[in-house]
C-alpha cells in the first residue's frame, strides 16, 4: 500500500535539514507520496540565493565532526537527497504563503526545487490521513 508522509519543515538550522533529506528520500524509495510544507525560518534553505545554513549554538562545536563524518560515509547533502527524491518519486515542496508574504517573496525568489506557494489549508488537506512530522 502506498503511504503518505507530510513534513512541516519549520527549523532553519542545518542539523534539522539532514533528517528532512533522509526521511524524504527513504519515504520516496518506499513509493510513498511526500509533501513538504516549508514555513518559519526553514525558508532560508529554499531561497534561490543560497547562504550556508547556521548550526544551533549548543551544537556548534560538533559541526566539524558532523561534516567530516558525512563526507567519510558518503552521505549526500540534504539538498541532493531531496532533489534526487523529487526526480525519482512523488515529492512536492510547498512554501507557506504567509511566510512568503511576510518576507515579500515570490516564486521567483525561491529555489527551483520548490513546487508552489500554498496556504496552510492546502497543506492540511494534502496531509489528511497520512503521517505528519514537524521538524
Amino acid at each position, binding site marked *: 500500500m502506498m503511504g503518505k508522509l507530510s513534513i512541516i519543515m519549520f527549523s532553519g538550522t542545518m542539523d534539522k535539514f539532514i533528517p528532512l533529506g*533522509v526521511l524524504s*528520500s527513504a519515504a520516496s*524509495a518506499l513509493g510513498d507520496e511526500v509533501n513538504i510544507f516549508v514555513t518559519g525560518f526553514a525558508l532560508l534553505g529554499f531561497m534561490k540565493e543560497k547562504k550556508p545554513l547556521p548550526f544551533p549554538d549548543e551544537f556548534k562545536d560538533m559541526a566539524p565532526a558532523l561534516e567530516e563524518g558525512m563526507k567519510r560515509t558518503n552521505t549526500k547533502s540534504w539538498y541532493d537527497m531531496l532533489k534526487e527524491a523529487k526526480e525519482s518519486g512523488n515529492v512536492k515542496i510547498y512554501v507557506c504563503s504567509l511566510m512568503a508574504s511576510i518576507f515579500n517573496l515570490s516564486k521567483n525568489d525561491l529555489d527551483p526545487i520548490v513546487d508552489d506557494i500554498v496556504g496552510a489549508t492546502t497543506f492540511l488537506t494534502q496531509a489528511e490521513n497520512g503521517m505528519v512530522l514537524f521538524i
Partner: protein
Amino acid sequence: MGKRIVVDARGSSCPGPIVELSKAYRNAAVGDVIELWATDPGVKADTQAWAEKTKNKIESIKEDQDKIIIVIDIENR
C-alpha cells in the same frame, strides 16, 4: 527466468542503499532477482521493511567479510 540485477551500494549510508534498491526495482520485472550489496548497518532491517511494504520476497541475507548481501525475489511490480 528473469534477470539477476546486482546493486552495489557499498560505502553508501542510510538511506542510500534503499534508494539504490528502489531505483533498480523501478526497472525490474516480476521474476527478476535483485542482489543488493551494502555496508550500512541498517540495511538488513531496512530492506526487510522495504520488501514487506512493496510485497517482494527476501530470499537470503548473507554477510561476508566486507559486505552484506541481500537477495530479493521480485514478485510484485
